[in-house]
């Protein structure tokens, strides 16, 4: 039974616990909320990454002993995570510091704080960043609103013991694949399922290589009209031919992300595949350094006469807090762990990503793998980021569906593309 005395005791205890909680907070100057992707956080599953980050955070904490670091995690579903973070930002609930998938960073510009002063004070020159990493983080006012600290690049992986000269054109692919198929290999694999990896790795590079554009300067979709339609159809027809001729198994329609191919690669029946540079670290841990040594890297094969092009991704840090003290603490944290010369070299080496600052490649803190120099060359000459248009997520989703439908034989390239175009245009 609820009596006045019981009620009084309950209220007293609740107030007391609130006061205790408040006093523990007031011991710190402030709390810095930090939201990161699990694989980039202190809660990651890779002990080497976690050990590196714990060391970097401990170092940072020495300079900020009275700042309480509140670490939160994004969902591992990147698209969903970015959608939720954007919603938080729009409602004024964004964390002080958050990790943002770089290609969507322009959508966060209204909520992010400029970092020019902090970057300059840290002695970092924005010209040291790859051009795409500099351009994407700038607002219309020319100010820098984020720092891209990792990048990645899509390439062709090929077995050096099976393929003497990696194919440069689609015609080369068919020629090489025929011999490989006769030997019983799955000649050419690529992600063609329902995730961003399929569009980003399998479609965009070949489409851009022909001069295709997904959106116009105003951010309106243009991939399904005029010459762009023909360019996109060429890519879809290329993949359909590979499946029809038995060079690619239709089960690639189940592989939405690049890493989904790793099991097949490890099984030893794959001769070539389209993937990302980050798979070097992933595959090395599965098949070992000796197994990885069999693999070479080359540019993505293009239609005859097309230019080289590939998609460059990566993650950025953005600061949402307007409090200058928090901004400084947040920036120093990312400087120590991810962005400074030592931080970027250390993090990209331990995690298997590529630095976004050119000078880091020659820094002692960076431990390159056998492919790093080539990845850097490809990035510099062919790298391109996805358009930051509001419509991009829909374009990507619809084109993933189209590719999956073509590869599984559900639709013709024409029907699949027209359906995707109709869905985006609506």
């Amino acid at each position, binding site marked *: 039974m609820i009596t006045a005395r019981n009620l009084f005791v309950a209220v007293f205890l609740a107030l007391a616990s609130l006061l205790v909680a408040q006093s523990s907070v007031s011991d710190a100057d402030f709390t810095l909320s930090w939201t990161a992707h699990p694989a980039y956080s202190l809660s990651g599953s890779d002990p080497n990454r976690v050990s590196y980050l714990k060391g970097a955070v401990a170092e940072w904490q020495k300079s900020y002993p009275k700042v309480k670091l509140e670490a939160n995690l994004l969902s591992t579903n990147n698209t969903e995570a970015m959608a939720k973070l954007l919603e938080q930002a729009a409602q004024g609930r964004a964390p002080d510091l958050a990790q943002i998938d770089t290609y969507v960073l322009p959508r966060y510009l209204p909520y992010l704080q400029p970092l020019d002063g902090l970057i300059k004070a840290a002695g970092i020159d924005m010209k040291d960043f790859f051009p795409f990493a500099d351009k994407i983080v700038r607002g219309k006012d020319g100010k820098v609103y984020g720092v891209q600290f990792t990048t990645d690049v899509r390439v062709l992986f090929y077995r050096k013991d099976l393929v003497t000269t990696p194919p440069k054109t689609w015609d080369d692919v068919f020629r090489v694949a025929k011999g490989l198929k006769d030997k019983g290999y799955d000649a050419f694999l690529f992600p063609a399922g*329902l995730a961003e990896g399929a569009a980003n790795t399998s479609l965009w590079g070949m489409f851009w290589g022909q001069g295709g554009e997904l959106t116009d300067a105003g951010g309106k979709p243009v991939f399904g009209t005029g010459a762009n339609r023909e360019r996109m159809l060429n890519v879809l027809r290329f993949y359909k031919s590979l499946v029809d001729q038995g060079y690619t198994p239709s089960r690639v329609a189940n592989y939405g992300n690049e890493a989904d191919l790793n099991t097949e690669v490890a099984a030893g029946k794959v001769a070539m595949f389209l993937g990302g540079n980050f798979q070097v670290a992933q595959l090395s841990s599965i098949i070992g350094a000796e197994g990885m040594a069999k693999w070479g890297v080359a540019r993505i094969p293009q239609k005859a006469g097309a230019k080289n092009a590939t998609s460059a991704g990566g993650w950025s840090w953005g600061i949402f807090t307007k409090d200058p003290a928090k901004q400084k603490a947040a920036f120093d944290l990312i400087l120590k762990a991810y962005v400074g010369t030592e931080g970027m070299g250390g993090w990209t080496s331990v995690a298997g990503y590529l630095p976004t600052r050119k000078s880091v490649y020659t820094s002692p803190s960076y431990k390159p793998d056998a492919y790093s120099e080539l990845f850097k060359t490809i990035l510099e000459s062919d790298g391109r980021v996805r358009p930051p248009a509001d419509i991009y997520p829909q374009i990507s989703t619809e084109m993933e569906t189209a590719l999956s439908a073509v590869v599984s034989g559900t639709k013709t390239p024409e029907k699949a593309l027209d359906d995707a175009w109709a869905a985006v245009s609506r």
Partner: protein
Amino acid sequence: MSASPGRVREDRGLALWLLPLALLCIAVFVIPVFQILRLSFSASTLMKAGKGLSLETYSRLFSSPDFLSIMLTTLIFVVASVALQVALGFAIALYLDHGRSQGYRGMLLVRTAVLAAWAIPGVVIGVVWKMLFSELDSGLVMSLVRLVAPGARPQFLSSPVPALVSSIVANVWRGTAYSMILLYAGLMTFPRELDEAAHLDGAGALRLLFRIKLPILAPLFLICILLVTVQTFNTFDMLMALTGGGPGRSTEVLALNIYKTIFTEFDLSRGGAAAMVLLLVNLGITWVYFRFLKGRAE
């Protein structure tokens, strides 16, 4: 006839006790539903709030060939899943009931094994079945198929029709336990005298089943079908992990479409409109359920 003052006081007291629950329901259900309803009539995305209200989203939704194909896929998925879940659930319930009446050992183990499938989260079930249906030579189902037909290379998940069948199989595996629990509970309350009387009259097992047990259990079957139908309409987590809705859109059911529309395309208005369609379907089934329960009570 007016209520007595004591009854009025009692009613007021009850209403007061129910007030927190009502407020909670309004906060976590009614307000979000109205918010989704409002979004469905706007042109909102996660980036931009739409201005004004119109029927345009619904017009685009119902005229979209994708939406019609998603509804057809949903219908096939739901009808096949519900029919198989209820049929298999009843078969297992009959087996358990028979085992119990005969004093077989191990019935508890069977019940636990069946219930385990129900207790496992949908995402885990999706991942497990994705591994089972792997089209590599190492896939378990593939290995079994190739024991029988060595040259066969079935495309469990990479061809539209087999992918839908595989999705239904995984969903039936997951959901059969629920039907089994409901129907087994019904069988346990079945009067043994009727069983014995039927036997004395010379009725065989099949006649006993079709002429006596099924008619008596029919109301329970209806409740079971309605509840399982609502659950199946809302299935999304398992399919997300198993097929992601692919290949193409061949396994994209309505609940999965809503998720993808909102969280990968950021389209709140279209996602909201599709969510309202799903809500109406569920409300329709719930209405039938309550009408039925009310009819039984009267």
